[in-house]
């Protein structure tokens, strides 16, 4: 049985990033031995979270969605994220936060969630496993209302160049060459896209904010937040008044500013979506939304 750590109040993302950054720098100090790769068997929890109505409206406006009395799935993710982060910056967390790559999300949004709901959020890490270029793991967040599980999200992260055991003989990528489908839309993402999303979500990760802050962390330019891209896709595809599941996989980052071509296609009881660089033709993300 996993232990539960009650955080009391949701931790501030700023301090979490600072801690993560510090841990990351520590992690790169020369002479540091590879730590033992074991995930902490603990679940962090915050109870009685209340979404802010202002941020709900701001979020829906940002995504070009209609303002409605339902919490969008990505906004719920944002509520849970500090709790998830708190797990990843634990001292006994085996992978460095800095440089960690967000690979995918899979979310079960089990029923519509009222903006007036009082939510309990818990998060833990699991499923540490090998990846072609390092090690990946899942952060699982769960959201409950009066004990009922209403939202469950699994975020998969990759730590490049960190190995569970022996470094793998790195086989060449056996990826199908990406062929862009027929676009059904186009997103013009300006340089301020990251800042606008951060302002709504309260998630000020430097790699999304500006070219300068991103460069400080080794990126050539700021990149769009993966959950922003997911949010844009869901705004056009997620059902209303019903539960749904959705998933997104990220391929290459969207450097800002950028023009992203997107395709939405009906897949029976859901919508498949994908996005790629309008000029580069490189795939950015693919995903699917399925009504429950």
């Amino acid at each position, binding site marked *: 049985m996993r232990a539960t750590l009650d955080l009391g109040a949701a931790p501030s993302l700023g301090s979490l990033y600072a801690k993560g950054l510090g841990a990351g720098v520590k992690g790169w100090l020369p002479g540091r031995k590879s730590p033992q790769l074991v995930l902490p068997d603990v679940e962090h929890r915050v109870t009685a979270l209340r979404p802010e109505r202002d941020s709900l409206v701001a979020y829906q406006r940002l995504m070009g969605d209609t303002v409605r009395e339902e919490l969008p799935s990505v906004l719920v993710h944002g509520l849970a994220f500090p709790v998830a982060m708190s797990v990843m910056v634990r001292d006994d967390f085996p992978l460095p936060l800095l440089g960690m790559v967000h690979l995918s999300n899979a979310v079960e949004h089990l029923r519509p969630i009222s903006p007036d709901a009082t939510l309990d959020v818990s998060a833990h890490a699991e499923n540490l496993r090998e990846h072609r270029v390092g090690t990946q793991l899942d952060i699982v967040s769960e959201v409950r209302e009066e004990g009922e599980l209403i939202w469950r999200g699994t975020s998969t992260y990759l730590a490049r160049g960190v190995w569970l055991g022996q470094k793998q003989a790195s086989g060449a990528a056996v990826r199908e060459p990406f062929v862009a489908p027929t676009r059904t839309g186009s997103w*013009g993402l300006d340089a301020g896209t990251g800042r606008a999303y951060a302002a709504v979500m309260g998630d000020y990760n430097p790699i999304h904010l500006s070219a300068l802050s991103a460069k400080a962390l080794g990126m050539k330019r700021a990149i769009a937040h993966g959950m922003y891209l997911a949010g844009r896709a869901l705004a056009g*595809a997620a059902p209303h008044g019903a539960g749904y599941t959705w998933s997104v996989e990220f391929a290459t980052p969207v450097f800002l500013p950028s023009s992203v071509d997107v395709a939405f296609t*009906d897949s029976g009881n859901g919508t498949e979506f994908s996005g790629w660089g309008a000029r580069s033709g490189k795939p950015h993300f693919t995903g699917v939304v399925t009504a429950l």
Partner: protein
Amino acid sequence: MTAQSETPAIRQAVIIGGNRIPFARSNGAYANASNQDMFTAAIDGLVARFGLQGQRLGAVAGGAVLKHSKDFNLVRECVLGSSLSPETPAYDVQMACATGMEAIGSLANKIKLGQIDSAIGGGVDTTSDAPIAVSEPLRLMLLELTRARSTGAKLKAMSKFRPSFLAPNAPGTGEPRTGLSMGNHQALTTKAWNITREAQDELALASHKNLAAAYDRHFFDDLITPFAGVSRDTNLRGDSTIEKLASLKPAFGKNLGEDATMTAGNSTPLTDGASVVLLGSEDYAMANDLPMLANFVDFEAAAVDFVHGAEGLLMAPAYAVARMLKRNNLTLQDFDYYEIHEAFAGTVLSTLAAWEDAEFCKNKLGLDAPLGAIDRSKLNVNGSSLAAGHPFAATGGRIVATLAKMLHEKGSGRGLISVCAAGGQGVVAILEAR
């Protein structure tokens, strides 16, 4: 052929005539004209043509796609500034490029029901005098400032100001839900139906030649009233050639590379203009010694899901026509004229291709057999939007008046109108000669 469409319970709505101002390319001759200026001029020209001075009509309906917030009562304001009786009621309609068709069609319905005896329907648009909004953050700040009661609250609101707020928002032609311009949407459809560059250029050339020829034989003498020193559509290039059109570079669907076939020559440019149509009951027309050019038989709207790529943005008329033909017990070949709005040459050709395609007609339209081909010599015989231009809401009135006159000159038969619109919509209509 079937008998003339008649529904005994209702009376006919008759097209008496029309008027428009010449259409002018954006930021050209009408750069200083507002929607109100142009629509008022169009109404006044119609009033002059038919001697309607001081008349109280049943209704005037129309609209503009791009509207200033001050134009919240655009059509009524135009009526008040016109030579019509100020006791003529008026209202605005807005259905993107189908605004004019919807206004005219719904007025025809009111006449058929006996609610009104006479009406003017139409539309106007300017992309030169387009509304430019303040940026969204500035707008929100100003609204907050308006709501603020105390000095402190006002200061707090103002403290949110950033210089970047001053960047204005011009209206775009992009679809809000996809971010793609109409041209880039059509480029997808054009490619999906394998419409060639040559076919598109030929259609564009025919449009210019037909429109120029119509002017030369005085066809428009009683359909157009000059405005601001312009007496012909400024986009018209009667001397265009297939070579000139072939030399143009692709303007839309450039991401399609080799398959990019849509140019400025086979796409309509942004245009300013206004058009109106006078409708009435037979009794009204006879009592006022007014001509009866054609009956407004029926109209139908359709919409498609382009957001999820299920259908091309501008393909809704293909669906609307199928439904309307069925309701009227007609085939696609039962028409003497076809007026298919040339938003892009590719739109017209894709629509025609779809009607000929067995699979499309079966799977999408639910028909046992394809609607089939039309006699191309009956298509847009006096030119259409590629030559005349396309001030969004004004196109319906242009087409209805033009077709009604053509049918009246022929003296028999019927015509089909098809107008596509933003948002995946379309309105189609049937007129019948008188």
